[in-house]
């Protein structure tokens, strides 16, 4: 059951940080939300969208989502905009200037950072954006704080006429803790059209004036920070003090409950007076923060000596153990190391995943495949090895174009860019237009699985549905792509290896840019499901142990070595055969990709 459906009257509820952010926004009267899915932020908007009377949308990318939020705020609404840390990069253009215009209504941007890169391409510390764009930032430490802080963020936005960041990290967004929900406040409609060109038309003439306002606002926020109750001193042992924020507060508290703490709820701008006061009260002062020395550098600049990154890691997520061993030295006793090698268990494409057949073909074509962000990025790994770069959403197309231009003749027929359907609509259209306009020579494959699969089946402008389940206009790729100037657009079914190979070969041989849409719904996507196919099995009397099917890396296909088998189990059908393949019928969905590859016809339908 989702938190939005649970009775708030129950008093206490267990919520993830993401559920709590949605709850807090709903409680304080927010009824407008936009965002783009991205781990660990996705569930905020999904959860928010389920509350009554709310408008929430998946925008095609984070820049659009923020602009939608800015527009709603300009119309007087309280708008919530959600994205993962790298999404803020996409939204950075409007971000830096909405800081100048201010918000009229209220605007809170949630940035969900991912220390340790659990599900991201980098580990950027988005507290830097707050300082860079001159926008205040709050950082909750758990779900209850997430619920309360989002309300404070909206209050700050209204009081100081500024966009406000709410920063979460994976461990806040995706951990659950006890929350005490409150009754939502009555919603009053404050929307109206108001004209104020001097404030909202950021031409140099006006922006120079607003630029000064931003500095005044930051000064006012600095003063506010000194007495903000969520910048909280907890005096215990005066020997050791810790300045920290967010989840690191809890990690440190768990390891060192008796230290004194200055826990910062507002991580930008910093309360200089409060920091000086705390520093004077304690003998030894640690600054404990994941990733960048964001507080540390600013505190050192105040002339206060601290212990920070000389003992705490710059990279990766902390936990109580990391902090304890940094301060007290590594604890060796009691940790039982495993004496045998443990085979890793990396994430993998699902059995029946439509990407598998496509990337097998791409690997065999010996082309360079520029990649993008999606489940299919996993196909860089053995055994598929069908993808050779991954930078960010939309990058595959621009990079394929750049490679083809740099390589010239050497690159003819050898460059493929792959992109998902959601990522194509996120940021693939402009580079595709460029590929046509500047006449690059690459084949772009849109891996169209009819949904945003990696983050858990979110709608996008191509699916025909909105976040809140309404029917929508679906983007017609076959009309859009030729309109961008791409003359050859073809659709293939990646379950059909022969057709996929033939079409890709033909398009690679054709000079100039072309697009191949590899179209089949994600196997986990219920709406796209077709009638169940019969699982396959390996006939032991036919299998010659060539391992071709095993080379697909399908979780349903296993290699069974003859070594250790009883003699009656061993069925040798070829001279040097040392084992055979086996298919797990409970995992196989009958996609037939392995069957098409088997040269001896050993893969057959289960009876």
């Amino acid at each position, binding site marked *: 059951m989702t938190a939005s459906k649970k009775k708030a009257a129950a008093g*206490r509820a*267990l919520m993830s940080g993401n559920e709590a952010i949605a709850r807090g926004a709903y409680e304080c009267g927010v009824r407008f939300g936009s965002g783009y899915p991205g*781990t*660990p932020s996705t569930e905020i908007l999904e959860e928010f969208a389920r509350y009554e009377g709310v408008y929430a949308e998946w925008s095609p990318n984070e820049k659009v989502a923020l602009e939608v939020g800015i527009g709603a705020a300009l119309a007087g609404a309280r708008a919530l905009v959600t994205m993962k840390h790298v999404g803020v990069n996409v939204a950075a253009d409007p971000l830096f200037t909405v800081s100048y215009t201010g918000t009229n209504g209220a605007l809170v941007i949630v940035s969900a950072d991912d220390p340790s890169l*659990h*599900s991201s391409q980098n580990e950027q510390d988005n507290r830097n954006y707050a300082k860079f764009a001159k926008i205040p930032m709050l950082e909750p430490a*758990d779900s209850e704080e997430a619920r309360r802080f989002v309300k404070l963020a909206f209050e700050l936005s209204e009081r100081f006429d500024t966009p406000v960041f709410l920063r979460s990290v*994976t*461990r806040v967004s*995706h*951990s*659950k*803790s*006890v929350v005490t929900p409150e009754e939502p406040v009555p919603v009053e409609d404050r929307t109206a059209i108001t004209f104020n060109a001097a404030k909202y038309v950021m031409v140099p003439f006006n922006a120079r004036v607003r630029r000064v306002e931003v500095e005044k606002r930051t000064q006012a926020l600095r003063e506010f920070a000194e007495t903000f109750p969520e910048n909280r001193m907890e005096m215990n042992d005066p020997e050791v003090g810790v300045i920290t924020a967010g989840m690191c*507060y*809890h*990690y440190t*508290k*768990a*390891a060192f*409950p*008796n230290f004194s703490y200055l826990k910062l709820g507002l991580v930008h701008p910093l309360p200089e007076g409060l920091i000086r006061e705390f520093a004077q009260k304690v003998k030894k002062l640690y600054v404990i923060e994941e990733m960048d020395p964001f507080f540390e550098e600013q505190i050192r600049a105040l002339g206060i000596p601290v212990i920070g990154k000389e003992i705490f890691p710059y990279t990766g997520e902390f*936990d*109580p*153990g990391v902090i*304890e061993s940094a301060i007290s030295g590594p604890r060796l*006793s*009691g*940790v*039982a*190391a*495993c*004496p*045998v*090698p*443990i*085979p*890793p*268990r*990396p*994430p*993998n*494409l*699902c059995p029946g995943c439509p990407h598998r057949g496509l990337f097998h073909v791409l690997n065999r074509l010996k082309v360079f495949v520029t990649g993008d962000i999606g*489940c299919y990025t*996993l196909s860089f790994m*053995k*055994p598929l090895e069908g993808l050779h770069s991954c930078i960010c959403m939309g990058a595959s197309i621009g990079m394929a174009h750049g490679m083809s231009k740099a390589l010239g003749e050497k690159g003819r027929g050898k460059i493929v860019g792959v992109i998902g359907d959601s990522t194509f609509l996120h940021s693939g259209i402009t580079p595709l237009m460029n590929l046509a306009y500047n006449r690059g020579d690459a084949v772009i494959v849109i891996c169209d699985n009819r949904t945003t699969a*990696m*983050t*858990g089946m979110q709608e996008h402008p191509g699916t025909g549905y909105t976040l809140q389940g309404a029917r929508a206009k679906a983007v017609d790729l076959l009309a859009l792509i030729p309109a961008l100037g791409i003359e050859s657009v073809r659709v293939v079914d990646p379950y059909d290896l022969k057709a996929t190979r033939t079409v890709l070969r033909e398009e690679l041989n054709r000079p100039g840019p072309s697009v191949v849409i590899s179209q089949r719904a994600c196997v986990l996507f219920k709406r796209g499901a077709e009638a169940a196919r019969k699982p396959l099995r390996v006939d032991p009397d036919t299998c010659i142990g060539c*391992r071709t099917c*095993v080379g697909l*890396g399908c*979780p349903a*296909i*296993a*290699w069974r*070595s003859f070594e250790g088998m009883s003699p009656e189990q061993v069925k040798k059908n070829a001279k040097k055969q040392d*084992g055979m393949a086996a298919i797990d019928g409970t995992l196989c969905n009958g996609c037939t990709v392995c069957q098409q590859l088997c040269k001896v016809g050993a893969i057959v339908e289960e009876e």
Partner: protein
Amino acid sequence: MKSDVKSILMAGVGGQGVLRASDILCQVMMDSGLDVKKSEVHGMAQRGGCVTSHVRYGRKVHSPLAKKGDVEVLLAFEKLETLRYLDYLRPGGVVIINDEELNPPAVNLGAADYPDSVISIVRERFPSVTVVNAPELADRAGNRRTANTVLLGVLAKFLKIDGKQWEKGIRESFPPKVAEANWKAFELGRNA
């Protein structure tokens, strides 16, 4: 000031119901009046990778993550995963192992071996090791998908939580159609 907070680590493979089981456990603990936090990572981990859930409970819990060498109970939904997180256990900690093997890709490809001595390695190091065949007990409960609930039942033997709280928590966590099978699965686990 000695903390009363204890940690349970659940480890398994995507699709085994680790997260659902830890959700139920936390709900039951909260309803029993405890403070509780749990933590896991979603996203890429759903694609057949390892899934872990840290559950920490007591009067006042700070960190949702346990530290290595400090976990009270390791509940492994898959045999091999026991070894991967062994260093999280405190000396003398409790180990519960579902006797089910799910091959990692390298084993499927024939590039690595599935360790054949998991249970003896664990027994050599920890005094309390319970091995159950959860899928088999789930079949007996009438629904193979209740294997995660079977394991919760085994875990319940090591926790001081009222049986009525468990029954309420489990029945309320599932649609009526499968609630009975899950409660049966829990009891089979608890009596295993």
